[in-house]
């Protein structure tokens, strides 16, 4: 093995993406990261390399080429079939020490966020968590600041020769954004929030041309200090309001057809990949159980999307949801206080609007 020194930054090249698979199926975030990695490799004038670990997973490697990977390093081993921190860290670090990638991206999944820090600590380099934007070219970064920050760029000086990866992420619950660099060590590592980077158009010719390589590595039982005794795919937990990315809540507005209203909320939640909540009125009337309650006496949520159907927006309810990233409200009463905190409001009957909204969102997602 060649010598490895993370501070010898000139020895590093190429952009790597850790391509996560579970049960032999590629996670969709891997395609997003490959698509984003392609842009960075082009800015850097280097190769984009996927690294894929599993057991007999050559069959899912070429598809990564269709989204931009020049090459995929595939590491097959029975002990890599199911994720363990120890095995994955060892193989990735051993291969990275040999190949010396300049940039390494991982999805900020529950597994990527377990693996990334362990690898960064072993390689002695920096890792930036949950990035939402990445740049190498300074002019592209300045352009990004221009549209996405309140900074006055006119009196700021930038070093246009700066070739560091600029990793931008939300901090303090999204109240601040921070751009992080890792100037003295390589690889420069980042985990990226799933769903943020856009998947490129799939190109079959590029997939066919993608090179598959099998790097040498060693791995044995004695390298692994945890034992996975079962992997359980849970039926979606009924109400994980706090952990949910999307919450669709119903209020008193469903009173004329409680069952129908809840069913519509469930359908919309299903389409958006979320769960159903309710206002205090809904819980007090016994329409939904107490664990669904959003508000001061219920749960405080700040999902990516909060939809309020037929909720007037009492202060106690708003206290539980107003920090959501995007709030959509549907209410018959145009003076309902919920509209004061909503990003998007539709004044109308939820029983008429919701079915149309479900169809429109389905269509918009299909078109992506």
């Amino acid at each position, binding site marked *: 093995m060649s010598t490895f020194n993370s501070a010898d930054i000139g020895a590093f090249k190429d952009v790597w993406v850790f391509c996560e698979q579970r049960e032999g199926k590629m996670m969709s975030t891997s395609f997003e990261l490959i698509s984003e990695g392609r842009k960075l490799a082009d800015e850097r004038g280097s190769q984009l390399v996927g690294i894929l670990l599993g057991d007999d997973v050559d069959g899912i490697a070429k598809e990564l080429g269709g989204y931009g990977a020049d090459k995929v390093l595939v590491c097959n081993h029975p002990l890599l079939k199911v994720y363990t921190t120890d095995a994955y860290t060892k193989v990735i670090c051993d291969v990275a020490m040999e190949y010396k990638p300049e940039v390494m991206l991982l999805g900020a999944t529950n597994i990527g966020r377990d693996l990334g820090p362990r690898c960064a600590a072993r390689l002695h380099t*920096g890792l930036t968590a949950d990035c939402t934007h990445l740049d190498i070219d300074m002019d592209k970064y300045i352009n990004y600041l221009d549209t996405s920050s309140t900074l006055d760029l006119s009196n700021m000086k930038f070093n246009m020769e700066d070739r560091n990866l600029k990793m931008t992420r939300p901090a303090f619950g999204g*109240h601040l954004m921070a751009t992080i660099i890792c100037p003295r060590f390589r690889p420069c590592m980042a985990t990226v929030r799933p769903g943020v980077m856009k998947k490129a158009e799939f190109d079959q010719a590029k997939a066919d041309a993608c090179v598959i390589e099998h790097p040498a590595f060693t791995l044995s039982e004695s390298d692994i200090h945890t034992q*996975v005794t079962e992997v359980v795919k849970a039926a979606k937990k009924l109400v994980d309001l706090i952990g949910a990315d999307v919450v669709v809540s119903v209020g008193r507005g469903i009173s004329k057809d409680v069952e129908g209203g809840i069913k519509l909320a469930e359908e919309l939640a299903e389409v958006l990949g979320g769960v159903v909540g309710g206002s205090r009125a809904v819980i007090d009337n016994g329409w939904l159980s107490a664990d669904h309650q959003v508000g001061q006496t219920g749960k405080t949520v700040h999902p990516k*999307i909060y939809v309020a159907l037929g909720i007037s927006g009492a202060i106690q309810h708003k206290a539980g949801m107003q920090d959501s990233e995007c709030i959509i409200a549907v209410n018959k009463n145009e003076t309902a206080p919920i509209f004061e905190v909503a990003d998007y409001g*539709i004044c109308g009957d939820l029983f008429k609007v919701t079915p*149309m909204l479900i169809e429109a969102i389905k269509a*918009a997602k299909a*078109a992506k």
Partner: protein
Amino acid sequence: MKIIVCVKQVPDTSGKVAVNEDGTLNRASMATITNPDDLNAVEAALQLKDETGAEVIVVSMGPAPAEGMLRELLARGADRAVLVSAREFGGSDTYATSQILAAAIKKIGLEDDDVVFCGRQAIDGDTAQVGPQIAEKLGLPQVSYVADIHKEGDEITCKRMLEDGYMTIKVQTPCLLTCIKELNSPRYMSVDGIFECYQKPYEVYGYETLKDDPLIDPSTIGLKGSPTNIFKSFTPPQKGVGMMLEGADKATCEKLAGMLAAKHII
């Protein structure tokens, strides 16, 4: 058996967050709390203490006022507290922080039947990195996102949450677990605990205490030793007043879906 719990004092971002004009956080104007996931880690430790009589040691790196938080945790039932605090440690990123905390844990002494607990992540940075990085620096196996813990002898069985389910993982002590809020409901301070918390052992580890550990090297700790640096921080453009869409028909819904898709919200 010892259970060492790493905790952090954080600004309460659930309330109003004050931002200075230069885009940095106005910490002085914000209340501080114990990081929520860390309270679950402390509770998990206290439950193991109830079962096994283990000693619970809370460790925090931070400025002197973090003593208040540590005393509170002693009042909840922890036996001993260590504050890791020095000018040299300031400005550390997650890598440097994990070097320092790992050195502090070595100083406390980690034996074969000991366990280290952390919260999954802190609400100020949301990185979830320090726990796994401490484990790497100490050469310990780690299990993150732990929602259930059973200990039998030197074997711990954990429920480790995934986005779409969970894994059951067995691990031997010594090991490091990062805890999520689904694990338990933290207990309150007891009246007796409040009386006792100033009598319990409380230590401060400064630079001098830890400097002989090879992990404590000026090139790997503090602002200068941190691999990552903040290049810029800024506030996102203010959320405008919400947009009331015209009408409530099919076209309205399509327009809304289109805007959500364009902004990658869906």
